[in-house]
């Protein structure tokens, strides 16, 4: 397969952008991306676009991307794959480039969570993601969906709510230097533990905020890389994993099999293992999900994720820095944009230009889990040509 590299990456700030619609955020992200391309590029270079958007806002997604960015002469495909949406848009663009179908592809991810009221967002979205007869009437909102896993995990593993809190503290600290992050203030373990409950064991500070935002990547075939930069970031591995949709069919809820499968596929494609990862952006919509994912991604032994937390190995400067951007927890989580923004952070990390730089980072991993924990994406990036 033809090697594929990312030569540009950019994102809007994440936050409650009441003043910006999807038709503003998408072109803003593309312009941010364009400014990161070292040697510049013409919009006419783009031969196809993949657009990750979870919830449709203000109308037909593909048309909005083409229209708002002035890209009316290329094919545009909208991708929706729950919280794996952004990374799956990238995966499909890589297929397009690797196959030789196109040489230069645009990837955009965006969502406007706060287009609906803070109170009803996840309830409104639930109608899209739950079985209408069996799940929906029960009120299985997003926090509950993950809380059922984490409560069982805390029952079986030695980890405690304090370990979850320590992850929130870490991600808030990481976000302080990130100008694009939504929550840039440090918090304490005590604050996390004493915050109002959302869905046990998650308090308010265990949960991602509701965010609007967009992110964009420029993906090119290996022969074209030098036209745009000397410092490309190579897509080395990609995995997509799924699991049974309904909670009653998930045999062991202390793990996310979707993540295990996605990681296995991505590591195999990259020909590396978890020990080779220098920095990771891990799906932390809720703190406990990040903790469980340490194990599913192979950063920690089963039921020993908390040891990584206690050793502060997940901080920038630690053995396996996780979420230097602040993660979904503090950077924000507009689902369609999230995976693309994770890759944007890792693009900067591997080029040594992140605002929260991991020294000497060469290989990076991005991870999402969603769609009632039934779909996961893992992407492995490399500063060196594989």
């Amino acid at each position, binding site marked *: 397969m033809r090697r594929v590299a990312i030569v540009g990456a950019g994102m809007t700030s994440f936050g409650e952008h009441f003043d910006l619609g999807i038709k503003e955020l998408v072109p803003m992200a593309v312009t941010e991306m364009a400014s990161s391309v070292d040697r510049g590029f013409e919009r006419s270079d783009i031969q196809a676009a993949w657009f990750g958007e979870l919830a449709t806002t203000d109308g037909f997604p593909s048309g909005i991307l083409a229209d708002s960015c002035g890209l009316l002469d290329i094919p545009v495909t909208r991708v929706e794959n729950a919280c794996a949406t952004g990374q799956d848009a990238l995966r499909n663009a890589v297929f397009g480039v690797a196959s030789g179908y196109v040489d230069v592809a645009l990837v955009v991810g965006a969502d406007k969570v706060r287009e609906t009221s803070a109170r009803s967002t996840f309830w409104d979205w639930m109608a899209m993601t739950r079985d209408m007869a069996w799940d929906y009437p029960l009120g299985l909102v997003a926090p509950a969906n993950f809380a059922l896993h984490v*409560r069982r995990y805390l029952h079986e593993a030695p980890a405690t709510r304090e370990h979850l809190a320590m992850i929130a503290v870490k991600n808030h600290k990481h976000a302080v230097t990130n100008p694009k992050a939504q929550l840039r203030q440090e918090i304490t373990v005590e604050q996390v533990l004493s915050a109002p409950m959302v869905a046990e064991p998650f308090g308010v500070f265990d949960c991602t905020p509701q965010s609007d935002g967009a992110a964009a990547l420029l993906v090119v075939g290996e022969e074209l890389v030098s036209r745009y930069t000397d410092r490309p970031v190579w897509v080395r591995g990609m995995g997509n994993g799924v699991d049974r949709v309904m909670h009653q069919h998930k045999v062991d809820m202390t793990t996310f099999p979707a993540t295990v499968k996605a990681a296995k596929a991505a590591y195999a494609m990259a020909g590396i293992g978890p020990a080779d990862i220098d920095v990771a952006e891990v799906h932390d919509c809720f703190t406990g999900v990040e903790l469980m994912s340490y194990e599913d991604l192979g950063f920690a032994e089963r039921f020993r994720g908390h040891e990584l937390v206690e050793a502060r190995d997940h901080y920038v400067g630690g053995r396996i820095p996780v979420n230097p951007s602040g993660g979904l927890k503090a950077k924000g989580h507009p689902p369609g944009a999230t995976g693309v923004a994770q890759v944007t952070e890792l693009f900067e990390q591997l080029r040594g230009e992140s605002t929260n730089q991991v020294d000497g980072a060469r290989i990076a991993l991005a991870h999402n889990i969603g769609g009632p924990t039934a779909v996961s994406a893992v992407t492995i990036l490399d500063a060196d040509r594989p």
Partner: protein
Amino acid sequence: MITRIGTYLPVWSGRGGRQAGPDEDAITMAVEAGRAALGEIGPEDVRLVVLVTRDFPLMEGGNAAALLAGLGLPRSTDVVERVGGAPAMFDGLTAAEDATLVIGADAAGAAGAAAAWSGVTGGTLTRLARVHRSLPLRARGQDGVVHEDEDPRLQRERGLRASLEASELPGKPISVAGLSSRDAAAWCEGRPPELPTTGASAPLFALAALAELRSGGVVVAVDQATVSAGTWEPGAVVVHRQERPALDAPTRRATPGPEIKLSFAAYDRAFDAKLRWEAGACPTCGTLAFPPRFRCLGCGEEGSVNLVPLPRTGTVYTATTIHVPVPGLSSPYTLAVVQLDGVDVRALVPVTGTGPPSAEIDEPGRLVFRKMATRSGISDYGYAFAPGGGA
């Protein structure tokens, strides 16, 4: 003859009695009482179900299918829906032939339900009198609005006393259903049994108590100026009470809409398995699937599924209590994944009749018929987990 009596009281204490939980209505309580009454009686021994209540969830659209599903009775069973209070129930009981299940349910006010199955043995209720008179100091019309003109002395003298006199009873009753315990005592000989309700379920709560005491005599059911009376001869009546000690209702905050409408197509597809608590069983390998599914989890066989009953007990595998406001629901509420006893099936269900805090991991309990939500004006029934099980 009344062979078996089952009673049900909601667990929540309220003013003047128990109060129905947010997941209960006349149908769910009728199902609880009906199942308690039936016990081991099989569906083939129930020819007719009479439900008496003033609180039918639906006036149009039908309650019978949900009632029969909850009771585990065939769809071909005759159902009579009778609007009324204690006298209407009394009449239903005196008229009941063998293999009839008569259920009275009260969802508003002092809530509860009671059911009797009639067979060839048991106690005998013989009608003595029936008086229909009109003094509607409390009335509710088609618009559902309650009109109440409180005048207890007028009610007592021109309502009850006049109707009782017209009944020409042979002696003082030993129980009057339809009044508060204090008011009832004033009309009775000796000390009548305390009854937890005053509506359609009250006469059977009276007979259940009298059956347990092995007392017989004149029993009366009243509803304002309407009276039914009869003679109760106790026999070997099996009484099964589904009555747990009262708990204080937790403070819950209801959050207004937006409501997501019911998908009637999805409602229809799920109805039998969801309301009858049945799994799909693969005819090839026997693997159970809940909810039933097109492709077998075990062998991949497609398209042919037999519905089989699921166990109604289990233990909590995991659970969470949701504290944030969720439109259309009352928070906090608890959801649990329950491992059912003896089968390789788990179910995601709401937790009922407790806390929060509620539903600890590994806690045992039973699965009970409840309302999951009200959507598009329809009670969306299913099963909830009642921790503690037992009773």
